[in-house]
């Protein structure tokens, strides 16, 4: 183990560049997958004819495939049908589709957990379907969704490391390159990467706990 040389300023800069790439890709994927997952989840909750069953099949397929495969697919298989994505976009597309499918199920079950009596009461007091959804179901459902959503976001952040296979220059990829220079770097560098991932995710999970106690 050679901590001093492993943590040379060049190596650190290289790794932190990767860390920022991880944060960037994770942040964008969280935003996109949350939007996608909410739309799909609400469509499936409302049981929109035709659209809902088709989305249901897509969600089941995506949820039951390894993310690694979806990443490979986005980067290396899509060019076969004329869609060329660079590593950053391929990673974001794959993460958005996979985590979006997961999130749509969280949203759907969150909405379904709202007591039917509330909807009946709102409807019979004259609120339309959309207004009932917007004012009664969504605000309550959203609160119940917060804990599972945050743990899904933590998964997403960890899952960005799979983009190693499509050579996205993120934290895992850069750590692997640096630790490949010298056998003595392996433990220090992997430890550093672990601490960086841990710090962000643990902070997220603390926020989740806060929110949970505040809401319930």
């Amino acid at each position, binding site marked *: 183990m050679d901590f001093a040389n492993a943590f040379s300023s060049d190596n650190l800069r290289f790794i932190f560049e990767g860390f920022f790439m991880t944060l960037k890709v994770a942040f964008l994927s969280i935003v996109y997958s949350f939007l996608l997952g909410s739309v799909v989840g609400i469509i499936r909750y409302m049981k929109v004819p035709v659209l809902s069953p088709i989305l249901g099949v897509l969600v089941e397929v995506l949820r*039951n*495939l390894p993310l*690694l495969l979806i990443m490979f697919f986005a980067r290396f*298989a*899509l060019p076969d049908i004329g869609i060329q994505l660079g590593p950053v976009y391929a990673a974001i597309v794959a993460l958005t589709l996979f985590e979006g499918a997961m999130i749509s199920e969280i949203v759907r079950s969150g909405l379904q957990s709202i007591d039917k009596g509330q909807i009946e009461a709102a409807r019979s007091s004259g609120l339309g379907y959309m207004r009932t959804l917007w004012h009664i179901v969504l605000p309550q459902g959203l609160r119940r969704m917060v804990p599972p959503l945050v743990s899904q976001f933590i998964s997403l952040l*960890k899952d960005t490391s*799979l983009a190693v296979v499509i050579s996205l220059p993120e934290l895992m990829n850069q750590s692997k390159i640096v630790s490949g220079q010298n056998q003595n770097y392996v433990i220090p560098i992997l430890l550093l990467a*672990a601490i960086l991932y841990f710090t962000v*995710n643990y902070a997220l999970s603390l926020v989740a706990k806060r929110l949970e106690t505040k809401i319930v």
Partner: protein
Amino acid sequence: MPDFSILIEYFDFYIEGFVNTIYASILALLGSFLLGTVIAVFRITTVKPLRWLGTVYVEFIRNIPLLLIVYLFYLVLPMLGITLNGFISGTIGLTVYTAAFIAETIRAGIMSVPKGQSEAALSSGLTYVQTMRYVILPQAIKIVIPPLSNQFINLVKNSSVLSVIAGLDLMYFGDRVAGKTYATFDTYIFVAVFYLVLTLPLSYAALILERRLAKHS
């Protein structure tokens, strides 16, 4: 239409990967169930150092990527003179990672058994270990089976990281077929189908288990 000749010509590749994926998942499930149970018991015992150890394990492992753990075993063990192939070190990594999640599931199961039961068992003369073994764990297991089945589905999907360290799993062989045929799109479609053959029935079974349990309670 996908080109089925890719499937037929390289069928042996797919099957070998498919079987190895199942092996890795089952081995890791058994291993992480044992390790996870031990850690879950650590987390609820009154012995402070063990409790601390359990908490650190769960919190640390759950918050770092599986791939990092797999790399660690793959790169560090050879430095200690232990040479393992990608399949074995990958399966060890999977086990260590999944154990943290299973520990939390089992802990939740143990906590859901009413406290009166362990008090009754202890006051009727059973030791702590006996209470766990004969009274608490058998009841907890029933509660944790549905969430455990979900963990198993995750395991099957997560086993694809073995491909990154030449772990001879389905994803690895899919990659090799893609490299040979250059028909990336079709090859990955077939790989996806093989994964779905494993995970979809498991998901369905997990759903049924969950519903049945919800009905009984």
